[in-house]
């Protein structure tokens, strides 16, 4: 294959990867702080996607403008989930937490099935088929917008965690649970906030992904797995890691398609996951927390 194809593939992978990274940010935030593995991740994202779809159908709202709305709505969902449900099982062993979230995930998927039906649905945007041409490089317009949106949201999140008081409080809980309680932080409320923020991230990512992909209820598990692969490769609990992991997976999927067969690209991602789990389970930028 020629250089032009490869370069086009790399650019496309980079852009898509940024969106993957945004989706994984939600997972990383939740796990990094609360130490809960959110198996309903993909399902929450599908809810965000359907919300954006509805907003588009009823108000003609471009998904990019729906991002704040979806983020806010999913924040509430996440907050409620942590506060009323997840909090009660934090003392239970891993497999019970997994099962609870899996049960919730199943409920969400079935709810979507009943309300929206099993068929794939998408938004029809005017600029959906446009592309920028820079010499031999042809870049999909929608992908560029999506990547920019992902960067904006991710930056807001990073700024929040770095500079705001609540952000620092949340990081304190993650670094030292006991110390945080000793100092008097309301850990329960902060955990609920964290889950809400993570869910908001997922919602935003869902809106953005709707630009690129059609939504249907069974899309969820694939995205849950994808987010896990990204977060593990990039590093659980590291925000930059999630973005970096996203880019790596995005690019490797593209390259695997070009060099091998496109039907093997998911296998390649899983292979990468296995290798990372074995050699460096904390991921590229993660901290070794056991």
């Amino acid at each position, binding site marked *: 294959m020629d250089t032009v194809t490869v370069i086009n593939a790399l650019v496309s992978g980079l852009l898509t990867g940024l969106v993957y990274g945004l989706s994984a940010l939600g997972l990383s935030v939740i796990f990094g702080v609360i130490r809960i593995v959110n198996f309903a991740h993909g399902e929450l994202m599908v809810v965000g996607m359907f919300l954006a779809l509805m907003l588009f159908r009823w108000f003609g709202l471009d998904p990019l403008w729906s991002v704040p709305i979806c983020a806010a709505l999913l924040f509430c969902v996440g907050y409620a989930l942590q506060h009323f449900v997840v909090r009660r099982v934090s003392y239970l062993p891993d497999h019970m937490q997994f099962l609870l979230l899996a049960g919730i995930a199943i409920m969400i998927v079935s709810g979507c099935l009943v309300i929206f039906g099993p068929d794939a649905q998408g938004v029809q945007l005017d600029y959906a088929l446009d592309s920028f041409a820079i010499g031999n490089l042809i870049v999909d317009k929608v992908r560029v917008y999506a990547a920019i949106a992902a960067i904006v949201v991710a930056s807001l999140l990073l700024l929040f965690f770095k500079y705001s008081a609540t952000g620092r409080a949340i990081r304190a809980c993650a670094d030292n649970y006991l110390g945080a309680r000793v100092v008097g932080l309301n850990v329960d409320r902060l955990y609920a906030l964290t889950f809400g923020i993570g869910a908001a991230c997922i919602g935003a990512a869902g809106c953005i992904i709707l630009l690129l992909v059609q939504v249907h209820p069974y899309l969820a598990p694939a995205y849950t*797995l994808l987010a896990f692969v990204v977060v593990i490769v990039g590093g659980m609990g590291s925000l930059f890691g999630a973005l970096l992991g996203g880019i790596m997976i995005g690019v490797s999927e593209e390259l695997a398609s070009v060099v091998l067969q496109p039907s*093997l690209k998911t296998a390649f991602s899983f292979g990468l996951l296995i290798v990372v*789990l074995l050699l460096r389970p904390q991921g590229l930028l993660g901290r070794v927390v056991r």
Partner: protein
Amino acid sequence: MSDLTIAGRAALIALVVALLALPWIASGYILSVSIICLYLAYMGQAWNLMLGFAGLLSIGHALFVGLGAYASGFLFTKWGVPPVIGVAAAVAIAMLMGAIIGYLGFRFAISGVYFALLTIAFSEFVRILLDHAKFLGGTEGLFLPVTQASRRGVDLLNLRGWTEMYYYVILVLAAGAFLLCRALLHGRIGYYWRAIRDNPEAAAAVGVDIFRFRMFAVLLSSGMAGVAGVFYAFYYNNLFPEQVLGIERSIEITLAPIVGGVGTLFGPIFGAFVLTPLGELLTDFISHLKGWGIIGKDVKVDGVKLMFWGFTVALIVLLKPTGLWPWVCQRLHLVKPPGQRGS
């Protein structure tokens, strides 16, 4: 038996009699459902070994079933190797895979969630490889030869015969699994396993070889799943990677034991007996709801059924995390309290 109260013994005998007599009194439909029920009970026992006894959560167990199914199916289709011999290959390959995953898990000290993700990754990886494996049918599927004589008579060597035959085969497997686990659990290995599960550091301090006993659990678990794969292949006679190794299959395997009670002996069986009929009843109930106009006609049955399912599972986790079976045992006084056992 010594652990059971009189009520418990009566219940057990009633159960055994009912299971043995089922094919004579039940319709073809109930027979098929019972086969699925017993299959899940068997698989639940196998899976339970890894989590309940070795402390490893596996969400990719369908991988071992798939390997067993494809191995024995391929040998039968290509070279006419009967399943009674093919099962050896199936178990060997499944165990090999289990050994690889187990070894990697221990060597690199991966546990908990990370281990679960490792099992998912391996399962999906192999599934996609199988999709591309032409000699095993790939996405077109592997079809075991079926003739008009295949569903008649009783041919145990080739696993061909009446549906009733399949029922007894899986019944024997499920009962055998139960007895095997019981024997192991009550023996020395059982004590080592429980020590490792409850407090690995203390166990190591006392001199228990953690690696060896955990690996044993993993190998046994994967091997048993491999046998299930052979049954699957010869009962359904067609194998598609997505159907056999899909992640839905893996999750399905975990439902019965978790609902019944992880780490208990009878939990997986109880869980299977509760969930399978529940699923069928739900489908029935939903069609009735449609008939009475409570639900719209074009609402898909699948969606509503899944919703009840997820709800039930979440409810059980919130209210009865140790599983339903211990609770049922207590309420119905089926088991003697710890102080009175050992007669």
